[in-house]
């Protein structure tokens, strides 16, 4: 029974993927879905493709993860960001102080 079920879903996946937009087309639409609302046709085609293609599902999840991580980092203030330990060089510091004192007189 499970063997038959597997065969049937495999055949369905195969048939769908043969008729749906390719992965290359789908990842481009996935990227656009983060920018605008998709047309009905695009939504249906993408949903069906995602239903049978784990790679494109991962692609979508990865774009969302990148966005989430970047937003989280962007909204962080530098003094609470462990990743940012850079500091101004002594020369830059001196240069800025000189520029400030020249302009304030």
């Amino acid at each position: 029974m499970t063997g038959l079920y597997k065969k049937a879903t495999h055949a369905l996946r195969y048939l769908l993927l043969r008729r749906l937009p390719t992965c290359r087309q789908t990842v481009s639409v996935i990227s656009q879905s983060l920018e605008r609302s998709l047309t009905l046709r695009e939504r249906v085609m993408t949903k069906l493709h995602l239903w049978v293609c784990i790679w494109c599902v991962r692609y979508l999840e990865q774009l969302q993860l990148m966005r989430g991580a970047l937003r989280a980092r962007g909204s962080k203030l530098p003094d609470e960001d462990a990743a940012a330990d850079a500091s101004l060089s002594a020369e830059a510091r001196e240069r800025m102080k000189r520029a400030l004192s020249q302009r304030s007189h």
Partner: protein
Amino acid sequence: MSTPLTTMSGEIKEAGVSDGVGQSQSHATDPSVWVDTHGDYLYRYSLMRVRDTAVAEDLVQETLLAALQSRHAYAGRSAERTWLTGILKHKLVDHFRKASRLTYSSQPEGEEFEHDELFRSEGQWKDHFDPTRAPVEWCAGPAELAEQGEFWEVFGKCLSPLPARVGSAFTLREMEGMSSEEVCEVLGITVNNLWVMLHRARMHLRRCLELNWFAAKGVRR
């Protein structure tokens, strides 16, 4: 967003009262201490967005000079650091605007970052993912990644080979959270070009991160 600072000296200025040129309590603190008090903070903020130390330094200097000029208008309604960060944000947008105008092409660049090698080039599955290079599962959450310094180092390295305008478009859209329309206005590009550039940036970054970060962290195929 604004947090009270212990060193805040700004007080609300009385409307209609001008206090001339002299250093006044109602204004920002003495500009000579800005570099030491806020310099590193502004520099890190800037460096997170432009990823070039020289450019980041210049932007801090421009910010402080602009602040010097407008310090009499600063009414102390927000913390001094918040006020300076606000000026820096404008300087950053100006920087992206100018840098984009140096690229004369009206066409989106960076076609080579679409990573054709991820897709099959022939056969009945042409243009579908090649199973040996298809996306793998990343086991990570956004908050956890945001905390990891090493991840951002790898991220910076992945971002750097992208054409400047493509990288800027991605940073403004994804890090600053600007809308598509705002990014187009700043970079002077059409929305269709923006979408193409973002697609290339994402295609490249996710592949680069997968190879250089997630592959090393153990992933499932």
